[in-house]
């Protein structure tokens, strides 16, 4: 966003198949984005080179030309070292840098200190591999970078993205088909929720809430003066709940008691609140703290749009009626606003809500339900009713005028392994389950393939602790203790553990670190120090574990 002027995938998903080089970093694509992985598989079948940087030997590494098995949290070292190689060998695109960017010199100076040889000692990736991948990336015109939460869920998340963006800018792999920088969004409408202004810093369409002119515009449109006091991001909200400055909470479709890092802390903070509303499709864990629970319709029961990873605005259509008295979230919100004294138009359907937003946000002004109906999904920016859908960004020049290089220095994760907690715990998603498990834990197939909470541990680490494959084990960090099944896995390095977070009966986020990135506030889900404590009496523990699993509502 800061560096190019737009926070989204620069390319489109169908362009992936035509790429000649793919760097997949911090993305377990075949499990978290299976359909994007199919496009990558297609590119590889065609002969594209694939480099996968991940602490685990994930499925994608099986078809990769290189697996850069990095130590969790060492991404900046790896990426700066790649930049080092590119500049050392003169593989940068001088013309692109000259014409389209600013701040190159400071990056050049910084990365000079990041030699691949030293990178090897920090990241664990052989210097020769770093050189090869850097060369392949720099010298392939259709080279795309794909990343997801493995890059952003760190205290250095923003730095990681800057380091990636530096690589893109110095090689000029931008503004063309199949070459760019692509964050793959983890949820159906992350892009759309950001687009719509559900973030403290932006009004709809990325118009800054800090800009008095923008605030005036929305004050006029809505007929209410706009606050000039800056809003809190999610991470800050959690801390403000704890210190008593937040007293009332409205939760729509989000189970923060299972999804936020360091949940024991979140639960305690929830107890301090004076008033909590939870609006959801299921009775989730957060409902335990609610004063009011409002039953919502699910996606199959309402109309609207979702905006996907490649900025594509697509329709959600009502297929069935919601159960009982459940209502669509948009209807509930309009009703609450009315009762709170803010007069609302009589929206016959979400189409008119969309029109209201589009009129206020130039990026989407040309998008309407009628156009989506006629043309299929539209990719923003679409500023006017005549402008076409935008397949890839930055064509014919970087959006913000000049792409901004940002020199970044390596900072260690907030918590590193130490004698007391000698292992590093990383977390993520699996193919079969989704987020808090509310939906997938109620489905037969996912439950059959992955019925229980587990931790991946390298067999050697496990054997040293006398831990059998499949035995119950306690994973312990400074914030909590969670019991789950040890799964021998050579996917993880010897000093690394990995856990999915889909299982309410073994809540991984009791363990994770809520230290946040300075800019985004995103918690460091991907790295914290941990140790394993084998469970002595497996028999009784096994019974309790199965009991907890049944009690957690899984059928």
């Amino acid at each position, binding site marked *: 966003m800061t560096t190019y002027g737009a926070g989204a995938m620069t390319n489109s998903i169908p362009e992936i198949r035509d790429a000649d080089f793919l760097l997949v970093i911090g993305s377990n694509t075949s499990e978290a984005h299976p359909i994007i992985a199919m496009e990558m598989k297609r590119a590889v079948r065609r002969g594209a080179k694939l480099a996968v940087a991940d602490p685990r030997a994930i499925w994608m590494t099986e078809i990769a030309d290189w697996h850069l098995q990095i130590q969790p949290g060492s991404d900046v070292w790896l990426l700066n070292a790649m930049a080092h190689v590119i500049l050392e060998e003169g593989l940068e695109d001088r013309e692109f840098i000259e014409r389209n960017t600013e701040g190159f010199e400071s990056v050049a100076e910084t990365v000079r200190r990041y030699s691949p040889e030293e990178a090897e000692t920090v990241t664990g990736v052989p210097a020769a591999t770093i050189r090869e991948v850097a060369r392949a990336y720099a010298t392939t015109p259709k080279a795309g970078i794909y990343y997801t939460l493995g890059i952003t869920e760190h205290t250095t998340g923003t730095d990681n993205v800057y380091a990636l963006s530096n690589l893109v800018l110095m090689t000029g792999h931008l503004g063309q088909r199949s070459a760019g920088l692509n964050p793959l969004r983890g949820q159906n409408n992350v892009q759309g929720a950001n687009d719509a202004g559900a973030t403290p810093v932006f009004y709809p369409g990325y118009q800054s809430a800090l800009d008095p002119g923008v605030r005036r515009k929305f004050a006029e449109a809505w007929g209410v003066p706009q606050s000039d006091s800056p*809003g809190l991001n999610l991470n800050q909200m959690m801390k403000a709940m704890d210190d008593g400055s937040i007293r009332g909470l409205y939760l729509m479709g989000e189970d923060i008691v299972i999804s936020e890092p360091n949940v024991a802390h979140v639960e305690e903070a929830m107890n301090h609140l004076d008033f909590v509303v939870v609006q959801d499709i299921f009775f989730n864990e957060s409902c335990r703290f609610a004063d009011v629970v409002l039953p919502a319709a699910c996606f199959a029961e309402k109309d609207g749009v979702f905006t996907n990873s490649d900025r594509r605005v697509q329709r959600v259509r009502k297929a069935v009626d919601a159960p009982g008295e459940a209502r669509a979230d948009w209807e509930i919100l309009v009703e609450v606003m009315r009762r709170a004294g803010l007069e609302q138009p009589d929206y016959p359907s979400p189409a008119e809500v969309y029109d209201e937003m589009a009129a206020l946000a130039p990026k989407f002004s040309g998008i309407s339900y009628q156009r989506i109906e006629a043309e299929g999904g539209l990719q923003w920016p679409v500023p006017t009713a005549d402008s076409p859908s935008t397949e890839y960004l930055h064509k014919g020049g970087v959006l913000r005028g000049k792409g901004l290089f940002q020199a970044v220095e390596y900072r260690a994760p907030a918590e590193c392994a130490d004698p007391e907690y000698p292992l590093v715990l990383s977390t993520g998603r699996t193919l079969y389950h989704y987020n808090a498990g509310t939906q997938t834990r109620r489905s037969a197939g996912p439950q*059959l393939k992955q019925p229980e909470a587990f931790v991946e541990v390298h067999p050697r680490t496990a054997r040293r602790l006398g831990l059998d494959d499949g035995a119950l084990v306690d994973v312990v960090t400074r914030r909590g203790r969670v019991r789950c099944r040890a799964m021998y896995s050579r996917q993880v390095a010897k000093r690394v553990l990995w856990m999915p977070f889909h299982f309410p009966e073994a809540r991984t986020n009791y363990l994770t670190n809520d230290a946040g990135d300075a800019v985004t506030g*995103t918690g460091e889900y991907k790295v914290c120090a941990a140790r394993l404590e084998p469970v002595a009496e497996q028999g009784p523990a096994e019974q309790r574990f199965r009991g907890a699993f049944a009690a957690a509502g899984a059928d």
Partner: protein
Amino acid sequence: MSDPKSLLVIDGNEVDVRPGETILHAARRIGIDIPTLCHDDRLDPAAACRLCLVEVEGARLMQPACATRTSSNMVVRTAGGRVERNRRFILSLHLADTIQERAVCEDNGPSRLHEMAELHGTAGVWPAIESERAARPDDDNPYVAFRPDRCIACSLCTRYCDQVEAVSAITMAARGARTTVSTADRLALTDTTCELCGGCIDVCPTGAMSERPALVYGKPEAELEKVRSTCNFCGVGCQVDLNVDRAANHVVKVTSPPPGTTVNDGNLCVKGRFANDFIHHEDRLTTPLIRAEDGSLQPASWEEALARTVEGLARVKSEHGADALAFISSSRCTVEENYLIQKMARAAYGTHNVHQCAAT
């Protein structure tokens, strides 16, 4: 780029020769649709079903349009006696290998084979082929049912599994009339590398691969209404067709729009296709709840619940100020709903404390 002078002729029309292009695709460019059964643009040509055979001048045998590359001065005929006779023969042959009666064959999904037969005609009903094609016993996977009596061994499913999903869980096994779809060691699907994407069901032209829950539900796809929507799991934005039994207000299954039409190119994953049990799950919230005096949550009317909501939020605001309120929305909800919640925070309550749950 192609040499402008390099041309071929298809049914009397001149077409430029493009490097590597097949007769099938060159014909499509000029609006001639050669029927195929075992072809899929996502896969390498297999030339297995022989339905797409066309006449190429100078070649003694007819050539499969899906696998034959065009070349300069080639003269192709995609219609006419010999080509059409072959088509009808091939269709009769395949029909003899599956369930001939269309309604029975289509008890679950549609059958492209029967559709083709209706469109192009057949060479009559042939006696059923005595095939000893077998299914795997004991495959108790919850989603994919293989019914060998419908299989025509076109290998679309195994090639899809190999080339698109790239897990190679299923494979063609045995020979001759026994040729069937199987797995290594005839394992149950859930014990293989299968990721339950269900692509084998979508590509099957006869309904041999079918969806188990839909089979149990018992209504053929033709009687269901398709509602085009967007998947609610990850950020790819796959387009899905919710197959609805209107009378029962029930989503029976989820299918993919045809390949080449949407961002997912005909593909879906296990979650998008199968993890929809939650829609009609008995645990769904069906009524508002309010915290009672005794601390328990009790069912309430919308009127009561909304009044309590507005009153509770107003009290926090009047006692501690607008910035003592926080609104957390979901990236699972729609764009409109996220727009409305930030409008609610900013306009109805006067705070910028609004954030959606995912920061990526």
